[in-house]
């Protein structure tokens, strides 16, 4: 417990988290700081490239671990069960309509790149090792939840959902070839091909400034989250609570699952952070296309303004202390 508190405080006292808080506060006090959208977009791309590439270079060094197949299996299990559990909780405890159940569970089943990046930063600060292919696991876990959720909506809806046929084509493209999946896998493969030598040529751009750039990006994320917090009322008490408890449920489940696979502490933390994280880039775009009747005010606000801040500020040290406690 004391370790959790000290970890949490230490995590809170990093420049990244504090700049997130600054961004959040600045929006609340209606300051006019404005990070242009072009910048947010390119920073998001930077992180996917940097994370994927670094992972690939790691793999090229250590070779593919025996644990890879286990990890892929684990990633898929989490990618399928998390949205299922979320859906059932939302439907039977929250009594939310099917469409919004599906929309929200797609988000909580999918993953957040920036939460993952913050967890990597946390592990680095504690010098805890993790496998290079974890970036690939993240890419693997982006899409399944979206399909599972839509399937669930179909199954539970007696009357035909009026999702247009053409939407399915769009959705498949959007999910399989969405920018995060392509960038993460692409950079991972590039990293594997070029290895350590290629790394040395791009290190001053893709590795050294990583934490600093994260600082600027989280300032921006803080402002985006702060803007959405005003829609908090629309979300309501049940969904607000869900946005805080679902991550913990997913994380604890994942810790137990990873324990069964006997993954390292680093990998276990990253898996549980991925499970706990809720997508706010890929999933919203896909869900908007697949389930246009769902209310964006719910899923965007929950993902971005509640779960994301919770995870990067308290979730990561919490899941870490749970892992330590259980092992």
């Amino acid at each position, binding site marked *: 417990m004391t370790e959790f508190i000290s970890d949490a405080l230490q995590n809170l006292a990093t420049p990244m988290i504090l700049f997130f808080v600054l961004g959040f506060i600045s929006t609340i006090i209606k300051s006019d700081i404005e990070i242009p959208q072009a910048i947010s977009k390119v920073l998001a791309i930077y992180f996917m490239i940097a994370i994927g590439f670094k992972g690939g270079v790691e793999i090229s060094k250590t070779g593919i671990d025996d644990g890879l197949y286990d990890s892929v299996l684990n990633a898929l299990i989490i990618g399928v069960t998390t949205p299922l559990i979320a859906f059932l909780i939302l439907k039977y405890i929250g009594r939310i309509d099917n469409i919004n159940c599906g929309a929200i569970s797609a988000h909580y089943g999918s993953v957040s790149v920036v939460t993952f990046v913050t967890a990597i930063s946390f592990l680095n600060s504690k010098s805890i090792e993790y496998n290079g292919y974890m970036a690939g696991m993240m890419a693997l876990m982006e899409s399944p939840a979206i399909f599972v959720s839509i399937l669930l909506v179909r199954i539970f809806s007696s009357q035909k959902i009026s999702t247009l046929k*053409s939407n399915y084509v769009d959705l498949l493209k959007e999910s399989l070839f969405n920018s995060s999946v392509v960038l993460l896998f692409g950079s991972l493969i590039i990293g594997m091909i070029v290895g350590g030598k290629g790394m040395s040529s791009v290190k001053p751009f893709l590795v050294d400034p990583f934490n600093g750039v994260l600082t600027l990006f989280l300032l921006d994320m803080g402002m985006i989250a702060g*803007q959405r917090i005003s829609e908090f009322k629309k979300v309501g008490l049940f969904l607000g609570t869900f946005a805080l408890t679902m991550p913990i449920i997913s994380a604890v489940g994942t810790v137990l699952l990873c324990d069964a696979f006997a993954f390292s502490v680093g990998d276990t933390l990253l898996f549980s952070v991925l499970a706990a994280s809720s997508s706010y880039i890929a999933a919203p*775009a896909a869900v908007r296309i697949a389930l246009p009747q769902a209310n964006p005010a719910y899923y965007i606000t929950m993902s971005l303004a509640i779960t994301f801040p919770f995870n990067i500020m308290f979730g990561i040290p919490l899941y870490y202390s749970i892992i330590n406690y259980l092992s």
Partner: protein
Amino acid sequence: MKKLEIIIESVERRKVCRLLEQLNVSGYTIIDDVMGKGRHVTRSGSELSNILKNSLIIVVETEEVIDKIIDLLKKEVLSYYSGKLFLSDVNIID
């Protein structure tokens, strides 16, 4: 000639263009960074998933073509997504 201004969520922009091309319109113009507020959420343009951002598409065509566009958009897009269609009179200068 008629000018149709289509305000639609940016995620649907590609699809609307595809539909316009299906109908063989003579051309269209797109303004992509558009914010807005309507019955649904405020689209302030400030997030990363492009769903809280609008695009404005302008088509100038004969009344006949415009009617076809409106029908198709109503069926394929506007029944599910938030958006607005504004129609007015205009002259094309050749």
